[in-house]
């Protein structure tokens, strides 16, 4: 009798309303990815770009408090010339060299960098051309701006080079490969401890979470660099964890004598309801930790960390959504499919 309340939650029956929400997000993400000039916001790590080094020399090492202003000064020249800054950082033995990473972008538009000639043309925009005594280049303009800003920086050294994204791409392909192996091993484990249907459903849910995460990252145009790989793998871990908790419940409920008469949908609905408290609370606490990280980093101006935290937040939400609204339903439909296949196989056999 007491199960009455639980059975009111008819999530499996409403699968046809829940699934399209995810599909819509995936579709919008996919369309944006395919539109030329939009796509994913891929950072220098993968796409490559240019690096501009500004060596301020000894005067800065004696006046380190000028650093913030100098970054602003240099940044405004760079963006003023239509380039996009991917990263800034200090290097050098006394931290007097400012390294600025530039994306392959001019005037807000991505430029192609596939061939060496295209890369050379981009570098020429930065370094300037010989026939104009390099005065049309970004390097010259930065030097001028810095010298005007403070005469002490007379003769500041500015140089540029092209950076290649190939090694990060290799890291990415290695990571994808390793994650695929990890997923197969998880599938085997789940198949062994639960059922193969549960394993397949869990992997579908996992794919959903990762794809929605990638779609949202594209929709919000968050820049993707090597840290994104770690963010995705984090969500793989979280997603599988969340799904297993529900399937564990399904496994337990299916074994109970009092539940013998229940249909798959009822078992799934009950299991979702039973674990709902846990799903909400765990999501809430994990979200709290990561949102605080994002906010603190935003306040302190650490954009790389934001670029890292936001995709994780998307993934957490997708993971919770799929584990409550989708995964158990997928399990039910897979079971239906499996029994249909079995039946038709049986029919085929008896027909013979």
């Amino acid at each position: 009798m007491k199960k009455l309340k639980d059975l009111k939650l008819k999530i499996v029956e409403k699968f046809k309303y829940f699934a399209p929400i995810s599909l819509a997000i995936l579709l919008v993400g996919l369309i944006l990815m395919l539109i030329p000039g939009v796509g994913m916001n891929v950072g220098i790590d993968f796409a490559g770009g240019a690096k501009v080094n500004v060596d301020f020399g000894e005067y800065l090492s004696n006046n380190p408090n000028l650093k913030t202003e100098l970054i602003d000064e240099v940044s405004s020249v760079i963006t003023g010339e239509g380039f996009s800054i991917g990263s800034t950082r200090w290097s050098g033995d006394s931290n007097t060299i400012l390294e600025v990473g530039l994306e392959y972008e001019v005037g807000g538009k991505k430029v192609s960098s596939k061939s060496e000639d295209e890369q050379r043309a981009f570098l020429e925009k930065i370094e300037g051309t010989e026939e104009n005594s390099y005065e049309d280049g970004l390097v010259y303009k930065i030097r001028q701006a810095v010298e005007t800003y403070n005469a002490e920086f007379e003769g500041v050294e500015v140089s540029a080079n092209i950076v290649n994204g190939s090694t990060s791409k290799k890291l990415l392909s290695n990571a994808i490969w390793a994650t695929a192996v990890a997923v197969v091993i998880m599938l085997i484990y789940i198949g062994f401890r639960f059922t193969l249907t549960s394993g397949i459903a869990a992997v579908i849910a996992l794919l959903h979470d990762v794809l929605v995460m990638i779609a949202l990252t594209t929709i919000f145009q968050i820049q993707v660099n090597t840290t994104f790989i770690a963010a995705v793998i984090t969500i793989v871990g979280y997603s599988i964890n969340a799904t297993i908790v529900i399937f564990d419940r399904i496994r337990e409920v299916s074994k109970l004598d009092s539940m013998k008469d229940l249909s798959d949908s009822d078992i799934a609905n009950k299991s979702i309801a039973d674990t709902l408290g846990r799903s909400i609370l765990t999501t809430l606490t994990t979200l709290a930790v990561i949102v605080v990280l994002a906010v603190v980093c935003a306040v302190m101006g650490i954009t790389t960390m934001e670029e890292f935290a936001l995709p994780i937040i998307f993934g957490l939400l997708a993971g919770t959504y799929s584990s409550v609204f989708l995964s158990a339903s997928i399990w039910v439909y897979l079971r239906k499919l499996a029994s249909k296949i079995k039946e038709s196989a049986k029919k085929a056999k008896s027909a013979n």
Partner: protein
Amino acid sequence: MKKVKSAIILAVIVLFTAILGVADFCNTFPLPKFIENGIKDFNSIGSTIGLGIDLKGGYVGVLTPKLDEGQENADIDELFESAVDILQARLENKGYTEATITIQGIGASREIRVEIPEVDNAEEVLEVIGSAGKLTFEDSSGTVYLEGADIADCQAGYDQDGEPIVQLKFTQQGTKKFSEATAALTSKQLYIKLDGEVVSAPTVNEQITSESAQITGIATPEEASNIAAIIKGGRLELEFELASSNKISATLGENALPASVIAGAIGLVIVFIIMILNYRGLGVASSIALSIYTVLLVVLLALIPWVQLTLPGIAGVILSIGMAVDANVIIFERIKEEYANGKTVTSAINVGFKRAFITIFDSNITTVLAAIVLWILCPGSIKGFAITLLVGILLSMFTAIVITRFIVKLLFNISEGKPSFFALKREVLEDEEA
């Protein structure tokens, strides 16, 4: 009596956690002056955790290729690609799993940029990392008997006198060649050369059929470790020289680490509040358990030698904290449910822990498996993520199953088992039946 005893034990646990917490973090947070003066010479445990380039900075070296005449027409893309792989392997052999390598420049004017974390001998490593690594065993006339390809494994170590050596283990082919070489060179000198320079030149006493050998006569342990890393990484077709090297500051900015620590602290407090509001006594138990988890995690990360914390590593920590909380939530939901179903507080707690264990085990073991796969298969920064995740999850399972349970037991004794203290209710059930 039980009540007093439990209260004392709990107080001791909390005190120890607090002391360990101070030891973990004391120079991260601004402390009152009188404490600060007392711990001037003390390095917190947290500050001894190895940090990656993104959080602490390190060294950058630009390696330019020394192109031989024959190589000018070779496929430069391929040469660079294999060079990057070998350099990566060498750096990993040195323990710099977080090192990053990028190719810069266009066409034939390309260079390799290597970033390694801040360690004592970073510049020395950059100096030698691009060397060809061509190992040969020769006689006095220059006849080559063995090459790097005949080496299956190699490691830096010490001989019985404490002198630094490099241990070589031959492949099957190598063992045969070595045996032949020592037969031919009995009572003569064998020259072990690296890039044409003699590293050591022992006199062969008799034919040696063993599958291992040592390179002796190395000046420092550091040099031995470099030689081992280079030989093991493989031979470079394209040799490099260090064009420039420089210090670099933290890639994520100098504030990234303090920001994550502060965010972590605020995040934990929020988690404590959510847990206590929801579960009262049980929430208190999990807050204490999570504090113990956090201070122990910091100790473990500091103790495990191959941990180099980076931004991905922080993600691993966050995920494992999430899972530690999750484990507690699963247990408490179960206890609530068992109590609502009519069990006594004691048996609800016992059954709750027992049942929840299966759930926690299955959900965490899948992640543990994934972490192990990533650790084995992934290069670079993902390895760091995998190891922190692995350590974090194993510790979180231990905390949830052992520590939370113990503290719940203590709190049960202290509260004399009042259901309301643990936010346990039966009304839900009665309402339903009505």
